């Protein structure tokens, strides 16, 4: 029994409570009530995975269904992995403590590309063959979904089937299908039937041919009856969609250790670099009443002292005022803290902040994304210097004194002048602070300017654009380090090497899984964590498997090139992406689609949904 073995080894690892399960609102059904066991697999630590809203939604959704049991599994930290290997403990789920190999279906969520090595590691630790082709009728079906599934190709040899889009309905359809054929389970028959479900992509049913220059020549179905294009799934009406009335409450501190209510899906702003803003269209809101009702229920069932209103740009919700007013009352009555994941640079954000942070003033993060107006027009971030100046003036007058500004470097068509604008905005903020005179103004000021390295993503207007080379990134980082001499500004930046590996996978095709497997065999895991990422390991792995990183990361694609993810239909028209790329080149902005339809194509797909 795994649980008995655990008892003997948990003293040897750091944060043992990651590996025990048993939290409030975790669900464990008696064996005789379970027909299908599904493991929700998060390829990162417990603390990261338990902060993911999608996990909580699917977990409670599946578990409220008779006959289905959803369990959880996370990537063990390397100290635990070593102990598990020496004690012969396979990777197990936190509910029934069964090895992963005893699950019927294992579903990975693909939140970021740098977690892919953890997927391989978890499969192997769980006793499941790493390659789809090596799995037989007695192995679990390995599935994957989430944002990175919109370019499934790098994992095509590893994952049996992908779920494209929102998972609430399709996961249940899939598990019920499994249940119906479980008595005489045949893998191939299951995959064939699954491929008929809208939103399901079975990569082994398609073949890819390549041109001599390495680009794709053709992408063709091998099986009769499988769709040539796979259209994403989505929930049409959020008010009718399932949202849990309870969350598992972790014992240990997690990244986002609070109740979360989703206000809406999609985003209307149309930032051209943002994959989420494209693939989650159209906008679908939950009503204010429903948000308040869910908040009250969740706080009462979880005992959480903090509530987060999550969405891509939360303050854009059309009933945000009444929602926040109603929720602030809870704040006063039950000492509940309210947090917003993102703030806009406008006076409405300041009003809201005044409402929800009456006593304690935490640091505030804003995302101008780019330093110059020219660049912000290119990326369609409709914010100007005036917005920044005004917002900063107001928050300083009210007494806030810690500000973090988030930027990207390496955006398409960027010049050194644009990069210089990042430092300029930092200086501007300190200048605004100096000029503010208010009784509440704090004497100290700390500004953090953070610059990450841009990764072009599939299904965005920048999907054809080259990523900066390592040298370009480093030159820009060096420039900013020298340029930012202001003592009140702290400059932080992300490692260019990790962004380069991320870029290879973001726009990779089927061939690069060989590099992935090679890197994993050489010890790659937790690549999203600085302590474990090794760039040399990746360059060696790609070299050995004959993969040219530049072909994927820094190459400019033509509009006519067949892209590895062209068979995935996110609802947004490719012509729209081309038009937006052209608009970027000419610095033409596009309006927020709440102000009028911009013709992205989503509205056509689902018949006037937005």
């Amino acid at each position, binding site marked *: 029994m795994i649980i008995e073995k655990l008892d003997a080894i948990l003293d040897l690892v750091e944060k043992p*409570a990651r590996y025990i399960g048993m939290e409030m609102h975790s669900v464990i059904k008696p064996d005789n009530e379970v027909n299908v066991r599904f493991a929700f697999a998060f390829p990162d630590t417990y603390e990261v995975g338990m902060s993911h809203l999608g996990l909580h939604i699917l977990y409670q959704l599946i578990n409220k269904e008779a006959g289905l049991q959803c369990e959880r599994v996370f990537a063990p930290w390397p*100290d635990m992995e070593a102990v598990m290997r*020496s004690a012969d403990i396979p990777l197990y789920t936190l509910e029934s403590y069964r090895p992963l190999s005893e699950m019927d279906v294992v579903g990975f969520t693909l939140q970021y590309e740098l977690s892919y090595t953890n997927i391989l590691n978890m499969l192997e630790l769980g006793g499941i063959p790493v390659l789809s082709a090596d799995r037989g009728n007695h192995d679990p079906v390995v599935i994957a979904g989430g944002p990175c599934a919109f370019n499934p190709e790098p994992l095509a040899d590893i994952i049996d089937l992908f779920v494209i889009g929102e998972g609430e309905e399709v996961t249940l359809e899939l598990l019920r299908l499994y249940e119906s054929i479980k008595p005489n389970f045949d893998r191939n028959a299951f995959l064939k039937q699954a491929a008929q479900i809208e939103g399901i992509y079975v990569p082994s049913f398609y073949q890819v041919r390549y041109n001599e220059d390495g680009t794709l020549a053709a992408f063709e179905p091998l099986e009769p009856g499988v769709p040539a294009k796979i259209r994403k799934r989505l929930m049409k009406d959020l008010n009718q969609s399932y949202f849990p009335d309870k969350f598992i409450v972790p*014992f240990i501190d997690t990244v986002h250790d609070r109740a979360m209510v989703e206000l809406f899906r999609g985003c209307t702003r149309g930032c051209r670099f943002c994959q989420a803003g494209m693939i989650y269209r159209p906008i679908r809101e939950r009503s204010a009443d429903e948000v308040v009702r869910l908040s009250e229920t969740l706080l*009462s069932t979880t*005992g959480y002292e903090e509530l987060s209103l999550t969405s891509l740009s939360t303050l854009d919700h059309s009933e945000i005022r009444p929602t926040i007013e109603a929720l602030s009352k809870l704040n006063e009555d*039950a000492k509940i803290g309210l947090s917003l994941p993102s703030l806009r640079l406008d006076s409405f954000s300041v009003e809201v902040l005044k409402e929800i942070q009456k006593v*304690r003033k935490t640091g505030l993060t804003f995302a101008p994304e780019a330093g110059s107006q020219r660049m912000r027009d290119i990326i369609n971030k409709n914010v100007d210097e005036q917005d920044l100046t005004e917002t900063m003036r107001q928050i300083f007058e009210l007494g806030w004194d810690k500000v973090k500004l988030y930027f990207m470097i390496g955006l398409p068509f960027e010049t050194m002048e644009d990069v210089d604008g990042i430092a300029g905005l930092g200086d501007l903020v300190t200048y605004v602070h100096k000029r503010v005179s208010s009784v509440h103004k704090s004497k100290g000021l700390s500004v953090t300017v953070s610059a990450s390295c841009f990764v072009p993503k599939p299904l965005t207007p920048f999907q054809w654009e080259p990523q900066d080379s390592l040298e370009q990134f480093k030159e820009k980082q060096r420039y900013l380090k020298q340029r930012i001499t202001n003592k009140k500004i702290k400059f932080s930046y992300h490692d260019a090497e990790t962004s380069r590996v991320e870029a290879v996978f973001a726009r990779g095709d089927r061939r690069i899984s060989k590099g992935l497997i090679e890197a994993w065999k050489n010890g790659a895991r937790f690549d999203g964590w600085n302590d474990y990422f090794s760039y040399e390991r990746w360059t060696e792995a790609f070299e050995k498997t004959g993969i040219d990183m530049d072909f994927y990361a820094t190459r400019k694609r033509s509009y006519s090139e067949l892209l590895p993810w062209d068979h995935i239909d996110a609802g947004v028209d490719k012509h729209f992406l081309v038009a937006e790329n052209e608009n970027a080149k000419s610095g033409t902005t596009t309006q927020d689609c709440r102000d009028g339809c911009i013709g992205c194509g989503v509205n056509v797909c689902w018949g006037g949904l937005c």
Partner: protein
Amino acid sequence: MALLRIEYTKTGLLRYLGHLDMVRLFERGLRRGKVPLLFSQGFNPHPKIAFAAPLSVGYSSEAELVEIEVEEGWDDQQLETVFQTCFPAEVAYRRHRLVAQSKSLMSLMRLSDYQLTWSVPEASCQSAVEAIEGLPGLVSLTAIKKSKGKKDKEIELKPMVHQLKLLEKGQTTVRKTVTAAAAVEVAVCELRLFATLDAGSESNLKPDLLMAAIASSIGLEGEAPLRVHRTALYGEGGKALFEME
């Protein structure tokens, strides 16, 4: 305002929860149970929950104490139900009582009883037994205490040990001992011990440190896993902490 002193357990795999995890567990469990907690004043109001003594990660207990402040007039007979419905089974209610405003539990606490299970390699078993039985006759037993950011310090353990007795010497069994590097089969004997040690803010001796000092005094190298279970907390003069005012 009413002050409730609660005795509870911490057992099973939940012994791996750290002290801060327990603080969160109580805050959220009591909120789930709609217990009308009182909050501290100030910028960052926190419910008034105070524990007697943090229990190390990995130790279990059948007699932990915590005090919570609740609104006057709340029917405290509901407390057991709150634990049954809003807390994990491994953190179980044992008893509680209303106390008058007093000194904090932490400042009243002086001693703890522990049951220890020490798995010693067969080869060292006899000398371990002798060392334990010989402890009262020793003039001094020292250990090096490591603390973060400070120099290692040699401390005298003898006055902090009020009792250490061998309850039972178990059968020798072959055990798989696991480390991160390997798993090896070793013949071990299980020594079951009972200890009363200093505990509290004035003077505190963790069973780990005591057993490590004994192990090193007999030249016992390597793994000798220790399982610790706390059974009682006492105040001045060995009075049960639960009863003290």
